[in-house]
């Protein structure tokens, strides 16, 4: 839930990166961390297993400029994608203001993508959110791989509601900031609508 502090003049919002295991959620945050100047970001916190799989969440606080003297701060979280971490995913979705669904473009991951998307919808509903009402964008990651499905095919399967979509290669940063800015913008628009 966004948190507006009139005393410190800050608007704080929470954005969650969701998607199947190994789709590249953590890599998105790592790239953002590397490319942001130290005064605009805090430490990146990763609760991961020894094999670098997200165990609970990654967290990256980010400042993205000012509106009318208020600092816009975004708290970026990733969920653990592995199926059996569902209880943790539910906890991280609490208070979410915007969602990025990161899909793995590889053909053989299509079923995992669809399952994860269903899981996102269900977990949101359980907490009284409707994905169709939330600021929400889709990213097709790993477009560099030879077995990556083309965008229009991915779109047909994973973006039925035609939200903003981005092709990406998170390891090189392609599409990473485009995705972030799009969701951040939707979050700000949504806040204004709800004011």
């Amino acid at each position, binding site marked *: 839930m966004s948190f507006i502090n009139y005393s410190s003049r800050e608007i704080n919002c929470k954005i969650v990166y969701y998607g199947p295991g190994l789709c590249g959620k953590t890599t998105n945050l790592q790239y953002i961390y590397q490319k942001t100047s130290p005064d605009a970001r805090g430490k990146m916190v990763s609760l991961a297993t020894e094999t670098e799989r997200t165990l609970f969440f990654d*967290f990256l*606080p980010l400042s993205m400029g000012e509106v009318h003297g208020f600092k816009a701060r975004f708290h970026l979280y990733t969920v653990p994608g592995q199926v059996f971490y569902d209880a943790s995913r539910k*906890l991280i979705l609490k208070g979410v203001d915007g969602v990025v669904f990161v899909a793995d473009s590889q053909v053989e991951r299509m079923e995992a993508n669809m399952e994860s998307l269903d899981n996102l919808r269900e977990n949101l509903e359980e907490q009284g959110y409707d994905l169709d009402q939330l600021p929400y964008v889709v990213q097709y990651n790993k477009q560099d791989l030879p077995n990556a499905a083309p965008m229009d095919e991915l779109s047909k399967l994973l973006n039925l509601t035609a939200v903003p979509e981005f092709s990406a290669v998170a390891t090189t940063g392609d599409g990473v900031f485009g995705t972030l800015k799009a969701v951040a913008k939707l979050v*700000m628009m949504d806040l204004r609508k709800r004011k």
Partner: protein
Amino acid sequence: MEVLYEEEYRAIQEVVERLCRDANSKAVLLIDKNGQEIASSGEIENIDTTSLSSLTAGNVAATGGIARLLAEKEFTGQFHEGEHTNVHISIVAQRVILLVLFDQRTSLGLVRLRVKKASKDIQDVLDSMANKSEQAKPSIFEEITDEDIDNLFNDD
């Protein structure tokens, strides 16, 4: 959307400062359940309070998840003992988290006692906040245009 106005902020900050002093603790942090820092007091210069807030909220969320699995009501508090710093975590009014860092200059008993009193004071402020937000309040969003939002992200 949660909104904290100057007046409530000052009231909360005062409670947090008093708790830090009266419990003889190193530092006190008030955190919302989503991991955002609301107020802090004490020796926090060398602490990354943003990360601490997020991790504490994650911890409380996980513990709450465990409680639900066991059909327990939410656990009311946690205590972690370290070599130099001890941590006391409690939930206030089911909405915010009070984190107290302390060392051998004080005792768990005193911290618990002061936390109890501070929790009540914080609850009072939160209640009056809830009443107020029923009334219409000025919003910065009234002045924000599409252009302002575009400009936010056009830094490169």
